[in-house]
């Protein structure tokens, strides 16, 4: 009965150990590698266009470079090495013979079936002992037998016989699998013998100390300092600090651009003598007279002063290049042009930090300026320029032909709303657009996802009134109506309602599934909902031919207090929607009603609160919606009194509220038989209490535009 730990001398165990260990490490790494090598943008729909500008190649190379940056070479090699090790271990497992331990089986030794009776066992034993007793049998020289072999064989046979007949020995056999009682067992450690053999010990110790003394502190340290180095928005902490210093309450888009040029991230682009080269050329270009704006770079006089106040150096060059990018200015120098397209995505990522900072201040102006700057950077437009420049082939000359001397810019929507012949006569002509270019521009415009808000209202789930401090949901209903869409169907009033899930539908309440409108109940006219798997449909990647990244557009919904100029409810961001935006061909709009929901806490006092709701798209200029919404918060006592009068709101007996009601001594309401008929199918259960679920009291406001 000894317990001894043996190292794996035969080498049949440690391959299993190593194989398992490598498997645990390699599988996630492989998954990571596959996920990385797939282009994340490929899964997004795109806006179909064949538009190419002079520098499309430059922009494309920058995009590719960015994708390559994501790929890590060490990951690739680690995965290869992992699979190679696993393959070798499998080979070892296949080829190494494991020492086999045969089970001791008395029936086999006596050569009888396991169903043999005691009588048969006895007779077999007698026959065998007659033949094989060491006194009787002679060693067979041809089989190389000795007298000891014979004795051993006979002992085995008698042991087997006893195991089957003797009570005690039989017990031993049943309990321990051996007639002699408990056997000693050995535990093998799945490590090769080599690492404990003499002389190798010091290498093992060295390996250990390198692993735990050097590698572990290094990994922990690099992780910790890595988290310190970058802010939550993923920009360098130093840049975030600098941008914070640049924040002002009265900042506009030009000011944000100036603030974004402080980033430390640009320093990688302009090292050494690159810091100043070409600066004077860029500046002379952006300060030249522009076609649409006094300065070609589209910057205001104030922004120009700010630029000239800077010391020449990387920061000044960055700012000049940013203005050159926004003004779409040709710099006649491959390197400068490339730098021009390279600074914009960095500025866009820094804008996230500015956005977070302006949110901390809760002022409307800077927050909007931050979103507008994002639009400008993606579309390469200077502040206060015409949104029409977003369309392909639209040059300042074309915009001038459309807008004339007017100071109010024509938005893409209003341009596209004009009849085809009229807009064609405006923009097609000599030095303007050719017929083909015009068609391309119109086709792109008809694919831009413009979210037209149909209705916005407040509600509290399952309540008729909004009482102070309750959790209010802002429901925004809108459809994606690309500019210039024809035959836009009328809004189905059923789509505008937001029906609460039934009380017993826990999945829907917790948001695990959404409901899909399937049709209308013929008798009652109530909409029928069917629970459906949540679909996540992203809008097509922003049509941004100058922006050297793929960007998936987002919509931000937030409420502001117009009197104080402060943000009342911070932005909720929507990048994915639950209904398809475009049909399968990618360009026919479905006009499906989208629902955006944002939850926040109602004010603690009752009253009428008027907010300005902003729906801002971060990728397209002039696609924002701004409208007034009124939140009516009722006195809690008044709402309770109204609820008491209301027969419907008395809780059902099988709901939690009903149990609470019963506990208070009230008589729970019986379900009406008519309702039972209604709710015999689970799919319809959402429609039961439609009347009291839809909060009808809140002010619905139609959009201004």
């Amino acid at each position, binding site marked *: 009965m000894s317990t001894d730990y043996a190292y794996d001398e035969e080498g049949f165990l440690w391959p299993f150990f190593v194989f398992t260990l490598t498997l645990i490490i390699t599988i996630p790494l492989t998954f990571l590698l596959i996920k990385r090598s797939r282009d994340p943008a490929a899964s997004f729909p795109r806006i179909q266009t064949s538009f190419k500008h*002079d520098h499309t190649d430059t922009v494309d190379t920058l995009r590719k470079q960015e994708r390559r940056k994501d790929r890590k070479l060490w990951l690739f090699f680690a995965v290869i090495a992992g699979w190679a090790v696993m393959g070798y271990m499998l080979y070892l497992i296949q080829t190494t013979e494991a020492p086999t331990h045969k089970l001791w089986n008395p029936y086999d030794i006596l050569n009888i079936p396991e169903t043999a009776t005691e009588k048969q066992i006895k007779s077999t034993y007698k026959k065998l002992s007659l033949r094989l007793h060491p006194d009787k049998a002679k060693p067979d020289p041809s089989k190389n037998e000795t007298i000891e072999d014979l004795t051993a064989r006979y002992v085995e046979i008698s042991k087997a016989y006893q195991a089957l007949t003797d009570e005690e020995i039989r017990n031993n056999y049943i309990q321990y699998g051996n007639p002699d009682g408990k056997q000693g067992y050995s535990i093998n450690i799945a490590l090769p013998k080599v690492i404990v053999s003499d002389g190798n010990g010091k290498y093992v110790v060295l390996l250990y100390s390198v692993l735990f003394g050097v590698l572990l502190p290094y990994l922990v340290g690099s992780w910790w300092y890595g988290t*310190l180095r970058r*802010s*939550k*928005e993923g920009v360098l*902490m*130093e840049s*975030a*600090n600098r941008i*914070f*210093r640049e*924040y002002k*309450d009265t900042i506009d888009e030009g000011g944000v651009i100036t603030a974004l040029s402080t980033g430390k991230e640009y320093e990688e682009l302009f090292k050494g003598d690159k810091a100043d080269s070409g600066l004077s050329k860029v500046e002379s*270009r952006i300060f*030249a007279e522009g076609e649409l704006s006094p300065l*070609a770079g589209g910057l205001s006089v104030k922004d120009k002063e700010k630029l000239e106040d800077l010391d020449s150096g990387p920061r000044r060059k960055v700012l000049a290049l940013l203005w050159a990018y926004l003004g779409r*200015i*040709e710099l*006649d120098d491959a390197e400068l042009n490339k730098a021009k397209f390279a600074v914009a995505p960095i500025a866009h990522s820094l804008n996230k*930090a500015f956005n*977070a*900072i302006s949110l*901390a*201040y809760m002022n409307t102006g800077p927050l909007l300026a931050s979103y507008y700057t994002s639009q400008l950077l993606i579309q390469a437009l200077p502040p206060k320029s015409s949104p029409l420049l977003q369309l392909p*082939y639209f*040059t300042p*000359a074309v915009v001038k032909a459309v807008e*004339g*001397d*007017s*100071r109010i810019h024509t938005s893409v929507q209003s341009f596209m709303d004009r009849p085809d012949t009229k807009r*064609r006569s405006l923009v*097609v*002509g*000599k*030095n*303007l*657009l*050719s*017929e*083909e*270019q*015009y068609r391309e521009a119109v086709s792109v415009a008809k694919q831009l996802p413009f979210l037209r808000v149909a209705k916005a209202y407040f509600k509290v789930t399952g309540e008729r009134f909004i009482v102070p401090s309750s959790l209010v949901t802002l429901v925004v209903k809108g459809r994606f109506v690309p500019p210039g869409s024809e035959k836009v169907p009328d809004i189905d009033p059923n789509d505008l309602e937001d029906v609460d899930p039934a009380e017993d539908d826990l999945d829907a309440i917790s948001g695990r599934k959404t409901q899909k409108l399937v049709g209308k109940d013929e008798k009652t006219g109530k909409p029928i909902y069917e629970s459906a798997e949540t679909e996540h449909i992203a809008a097509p990647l922003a049509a941004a031919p100058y922006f050297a990244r793929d960007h998936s557009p987002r919509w931000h919904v937030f409420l502001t207090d117009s009197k104080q100029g402060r943000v009342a409810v911070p932005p909720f961001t929507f990048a994915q929607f639950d209904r398809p935006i475009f049909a399968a061909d990618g360009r026919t709009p479905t006009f499906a009603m989208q629902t955006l929901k944002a939850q926040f806490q109602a004010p603690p006092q009752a009253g009428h609160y008027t907010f300005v709701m902003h729906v801002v798209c971060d990728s397209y200029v002039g696609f924002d919606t701004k409208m007034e919404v009124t939140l009516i918060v009722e006195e809690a006592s008044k709402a309770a009194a109204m609820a008491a009068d209301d027969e419907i709101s008395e809780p059902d007996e099988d709901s939690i509220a009903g149990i609470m009601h019963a506990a208070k001594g009230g008589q729970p309401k019986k379900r009406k038989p008519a309702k039972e008929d209604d709710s015999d199918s689970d799919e319809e259960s959402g429609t039961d209490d439609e009347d009291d679920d839809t909060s009808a009291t809140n002010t619905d406001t139609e959009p201004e535009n």
Partner: protein
Amino acid sequence: MFDIDWRGLLLPLAYLVVLVGTFMTFSTVYRKRKAVESANLAPWFGPHLQRNIYLSILHMEPEEGSEKAPKVPDSVIRAALLRRAVEDIHRIIQIRTAKQACSTLLQRGSVGDDLWQRFQRAEKEMEEELRDVVMEANALVPGWGQIIFQSANEIAANKVLRDRLEEIEQQTERDKEWWEKRRATIKNEFMKELDEEAGDKAQSKTSTNSVAGSEDEPVLVGTDTPSATPSGASKKKSKK
């Protein structure tokens, strides 16, 4: 009594020495670095020009040749102090508005720790500065310390307002010019329309023909120009 095997203890002792030594070097180096870093933090505000002016007026060095420093009139000193207070007001406002935002951003991890340190130092400096100004004011005119910041506040608010007004007024010239131009073009267009209307009646038949012709025309232009127009545009750009 005890037979201590010193040689056998050597190894554990050396281990301890190395361990403790490493920790101590690490901690001293780390602390020193931190101290240097916080000492080298850039100040939140730039140089305080108004304070420097005030102090240099107050402590005028005697000019070469003369023994006594030139006498500065009291009114000038008081004005300089008031200017200094106005600048302080600007800085206080900046600090007060930034404090809430800065602390929330620090909690969220959106800005770094050193920014917060710089901020707190600026706050402390401002407190000192305010106390100093009040004392100076009381020394100049007894009781002025209580009201100097009220007047400074009003001056500051007035300046902000006037700056904005000036900014708006600067635009009037340009707007006027633009409106004149715009009015002229609108007038021209109206006149043209009137002329056309008069002409239309005479040529109503020919105009229908020209409309029919114009529908074909753009298509013809379209096949001709696509290669010509973009290059023309780029040429125009490159000439700039």
